[in-house]
């Protein structure tokens, strides 16, 4: 009995394979992007955890050299013998491998999950061993044994300090971790090792926190496409149920119990949903694999975070992808099943009932839209934080999407009133009548197009600002990096004679509380005065800085610290200076304070310039003579152009992911339109038949169908432009400030929007073409049957 019922139910899909495809593909699409994005996020988080867990520099105070990167091993012994309970760390690069050497005997216990002891249980002979992740081990060629440990961050290897020194061919140390428990009567640091400075533990800004905003961004995109996918599923389920009303009535009339029927339908739909969701998870895995390299590059460029290069099947994301897809389907299903349960046994079969626009539904939608848009306004005025920003985005987008059908109806009514010929009047009236059936697809298109406009406005604004910023900041023609104090003095002397202007740069970590902040000492000269463009400045900011009476800070720092021009900023411990100016500093995760070189040296006497910007008329000749005369290695001298190219490369990769996700959402929206039109096509035959009978050819009707799709897409696009710009504003002025610490000026790109307009019309055209072709090929007999079949 049940078998027969099931066959009857399934026969619906037999007869409507396109609907079946729409159902499965909608779910697959919804699940794919969502689980893909979650897979990327999960991978990144695992990488951060591995990095943070193994050697979380932030959680301990440390001793660092004031100058350079090296601490002689004797200094370590001297400190221990003077009562400093410190543990040595050496870091270096071996090709692409980042090597970290620790001493497990003295390392603090809290170092990592299981601690270094787990790695370096110093059994006899075990010292000669590198520990690294599986992905890192592939393609590593070292002459010591490698032990795979999944807990280690990608690109990194950990070993005993002795092994590391040998591999790096060094006999010094990089830094010393100060253990929490220190004994009484410790000798002052200045007496033992004046060349070292104490870097306090950093409680804030771990890499996970820094990158949270980026992952939230990805999640938002994933959710957007999930929503669009569910639109498709929802409308397909609705259509399938309406079309099966007749069958359900027949089955029930034949005596199939209601409960059994409902169970059967639920099982059938959920099984199909599971197929779609599994396909979606597989697609998500593939998408994640494709996007991951760019995501990795972005995270490295923006935050200096290393993540693994391969996606692992983690239960966290594939299970959540499946569950959310099934849950979404179940929600869409419940309403329909409830309807069946309450449908009178012999209710009249009206296949178009669900399509017939009820004003009530539109009114309800519009009311919801108004509430959401009002919410968006409130959030824009009062909202705070990244979550507030995304909530604003959500309210804005969903509100706009909900109000779209109403808006489109108004526009179409306007056209209808102005239509002269009866055919056009029919065209507009028929278009309006189709709105409910298409509204979900149109909403999807609106979301996709406005997201595209918003994001491309943001990216292009960012690009313009960034290029301008690079020109300001990279005014010097050459940059020279030196290794030692002697070299520094030599280069300074040489450049004083041979260059137009020398810009020595002194760099150290600011000794202030809060997130890591770089303290720069500069020689104020014409280059700084002419090129740096401030976001805001007091009077004669460079004079103030040169006199040691003020500091220039970057925007990130100013916003994080809640300070602005005129406020006092802590330069060193309790010493504060007024902020002379705030400067835009894009693409840089850390805060910066710029003071005069002389002032910096009063707080950090050991710091000397290790980097020089050089202004010169003759770049090539100066570069050559630096190499020949002073023996500076070629790779220590960088041309301005090379840095710019590198910076732009990082920038472009940063937005590759965004662009890819954008394209995918547009694709999903196009697919939604196609599916809606296809499923509607058969239902529309009864409406088209009379028009055909009045003498309009099938070919002409087909053209009108295409035109209708284009007209609707055009309406959507017109609505999408202001929505997209609002979106861009939120991204630039709210999300960016929260996520990265900089506010970007917004530029408009009409040509770009026009191009997008063409794309979306193109998507609509492509989507309408197939249904139109089918219409053109509908046999006249089918159209005639409309009049023959009494319904």
């Amino acid at each position: 009995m049940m078998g027969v019922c099931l066959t009857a139910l399934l026969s619906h899909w037999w007869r409507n394979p396109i609907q079946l495809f729409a159902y499965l593909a909608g779910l697959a699409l919804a699940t794919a992007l969502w689980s893909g994005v979650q897979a990327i996020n999960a991978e990144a988080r695992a990488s951060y955890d591995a990095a943070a867990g193994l050697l979380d520099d932030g959680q301990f105070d440390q001793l660092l050299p004031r100058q350079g990167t090296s601490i002689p091993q004797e200094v370590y012994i001297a400190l221990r013998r003077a009562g400093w309970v410190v543990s040595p760390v050496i870091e270096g690069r071996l090709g692409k491998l980042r090597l970290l050497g620790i001493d497990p005997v003295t390392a603090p216990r809290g170092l990592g999950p299981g601690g270094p002891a787990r790695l370096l249980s110093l059994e006899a002979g075990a010292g000669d061993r590198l520990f690294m992740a599986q992905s890192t081990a592939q393609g590593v060629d070292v002459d010591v044994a490698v032990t795979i440990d999944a807990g280690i961050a990608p690109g990194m290897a950990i070993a005993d300090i002795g092994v590391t020194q040998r591999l790096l061919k060094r006999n010094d140390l990089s830094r010393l971790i100060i253990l929490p428990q220190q004994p009484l009567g410790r000798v002052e640091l200045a007496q033992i090792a004046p060349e070292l400075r104490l870097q306090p533990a950093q409680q804030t800004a771990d890499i996970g926190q820094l990158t949270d905003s980026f992952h939230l961004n990805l999640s938002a995109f994933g959710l957007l496409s999930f929503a669009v996918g569910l639109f498709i599923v929802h409308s397909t389920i609705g259509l399938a149920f309406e079309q099966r009303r007749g069958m359900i009535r027949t089955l029930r009339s034949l005596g199939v119990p209601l409960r059994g029927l409902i169970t059967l339908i639920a099982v059938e739909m959920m099984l199909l949903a599971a197929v779609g969701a599994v396909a979606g998870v597989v697609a998500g895995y593939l998408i994640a694999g494709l996007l991951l390299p760019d995501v990795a590059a972005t995270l490295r460029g923006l935050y200096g975070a290393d993540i693994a290069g391969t996606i692992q099947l983690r239960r966290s994301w594939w299970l959540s992808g499946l569950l959310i897809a099934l849950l979404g389907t179940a929600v869409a299903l419940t309403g329909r099943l409830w309807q069946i349960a309450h449908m009178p046994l012999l209710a009249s079969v009206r296949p178009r009932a669900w399509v017939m626009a009820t004003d009530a539904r539109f009114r309800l939608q519009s009311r919801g839209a108004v509430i959401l848009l009002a919410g968006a306004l409130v959030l824009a005025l009062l909202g705070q934080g990244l979550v507030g920003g995304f909530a604003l985005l959500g309210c804005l987008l969903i509100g706009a999407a909900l109000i779209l059908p109403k808006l489109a109806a108004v526009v179409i009514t306007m056209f209808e009133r102005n239509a002269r010929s009866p055919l056009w009047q029919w065209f507009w009236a028929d278009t309006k009548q189709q709105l409910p059936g298409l509204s979900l697809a149109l909403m999807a298109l609106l979301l996709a197009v406005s997201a595209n406009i918003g994001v491309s406005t943001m990216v292009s604004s960012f690009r313009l600002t960034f290029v301008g910023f690079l020109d300001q900041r990279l005014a010097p023609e050459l940059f020279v990096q030196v290794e030692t104090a002697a070299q520094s003095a030599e280069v300074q002397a040489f450049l004083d004679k041979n260059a137009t202007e020398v810009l020595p740069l002194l760099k150290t970590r600011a000794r202030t509380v809060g997130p890591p902040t770089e303290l720069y000492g500069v020689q104020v000269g014409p280059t700084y005065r002419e090129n740096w463009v401030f976001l805001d400045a007091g009077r004669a900011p460079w004079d103030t800085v040169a006199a040691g009476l003020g500091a220039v800070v970057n925007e990130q720092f100013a916003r994080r610290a809640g300070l602005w021009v005129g406020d006092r900023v802590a330069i060193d411990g309790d010493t504060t200076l007024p902020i002379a100016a705030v400067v835009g500093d894009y693409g840089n995760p850390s805060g910066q304070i710029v003071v005069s070189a002389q002032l910096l040296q009063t707080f950090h006497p050991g710091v000397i310039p290790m980097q020089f910007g050089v202004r010169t008329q003759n770049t090539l000749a100066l570069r050559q003579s630096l190499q020949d005369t002073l023996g500076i290695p070629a790779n220590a001298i960088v041309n301005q152009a090379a840095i710019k190219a590198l910076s732009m490369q990082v920038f472009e990769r940063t937005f590759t992911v965004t662009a890819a996700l954008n394209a995918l959402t547009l694709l999903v929206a196009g697919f939604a339109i196609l599916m809606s039109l296809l499923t509607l096509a058969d239902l529309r035959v009864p409406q088209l038949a009379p028009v055909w009978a009045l003498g309009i050819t099938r070919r002409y009707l087909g053209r009108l169908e295409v035109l209708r799709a284009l007209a609707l897409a055009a309406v959507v696009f017109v609505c999408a432009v202001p929505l997209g710009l609002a979106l861009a504003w939120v991204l630039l002025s709210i999300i960016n400030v929260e996520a990265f610490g900089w506010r970007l000026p917004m530029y408009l790109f009409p040509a770009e929007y026009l191009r997008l307009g063409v794309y979306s019309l193109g998507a609509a055209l492509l989507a309408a073409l197939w249904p139109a072709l089918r219409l053109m090929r509908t046999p006249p007999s089918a159209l005639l049957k409309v009049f023959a079949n009494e319904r």
Partner: protein
Amino acid sequence: MNAKLVLFLLVFPVTLWAQGFSGLGAQVDGFATPAPNPVFDFPEDHGPHPDFRIEWWYVTANLQGADGQDYGLQWTLFRTALAPGEAAGWRSPQVWFAHAAVTTPKAHFASERFARGGIGQAGVEAAPFHAWIDEWALSGADFDRLDLKARGADFGFDMTLDALGPLVFHGADGYSVKSREGQASYYYSQPFFDIEGKLILPEGTVPVSGKAWLDREWSSQPLSENQTGWDWFSLSFDDGAKLMGFLLRQNDGTTFSASTWITSEGEAVTLPADAFRAVALEKHRIAGREIPTSWQVTLPERGINVTVAALNPNSWMDLSIPYWEGPVRISGSHAGKGYLEMTGYE
């Protein structure tokens, strides 16, 4: 005082050098083993023996302040080898660690240090004698007059030790058997130190003086596999005689004991195995375990029948290797002071 051997065996496997020490009781891969009839060569033998797996320089002292207040002090430097022999730099297989503690009737302070051998952070030189780890040190021109220093986060001490008697050799001329299976170590003591100096405590610096006992022991395979814990006593009676005795608890519930009677003149008499008897009287709950902090100690051969009670039952060494160690008072047939160490209580 091979209590520390038990310590290693029982507690170390769960800590840092887990793999290095698993199987300590059974395997002696490449390490030298103690042999009967040792001939010591001083001052060289005050220095390290890197071919043996473990070794220590162990000082305990019963102290008194000017007001008669009792204190206890412990300073121990341990050497443990991951492989026999020595190498320069980080390749050295030697690992050093040290414990220091001060006990008052009310409080117990303890601290520890760790170091790799081969890099100069820790080590022992025989002559002039110098044993150090970080800023902690036990050193002097020779083994008879030593300066002792340690610092923790909330305590410290600077002491001077002056030997008033000869070295004492345990077991058979310093060959000390630890089990019926024949496991053994080299073991000698200097129990005749006068000690004075200052304790640095949270309430201030306290000048103190008293008696100290220094143990030297090294071995490679000192314990049999079935030994689970250890109670070690060093007792100094008011009449000048001293008694070192230990119980090794075995997993079948039996014990193995050994002891040395030291006359006030410094003559050492090794007593027969199991002559020394100690029975727990009172248990004290600390760190989630039941620790006997009061004992009935009997040695019929010498007419000893005394109660040994902790000065502070909370003398718990809450370190990477946790154990109980603290000063004790002796009453009964004889009176005096001493030190008690207990390991392997879970």
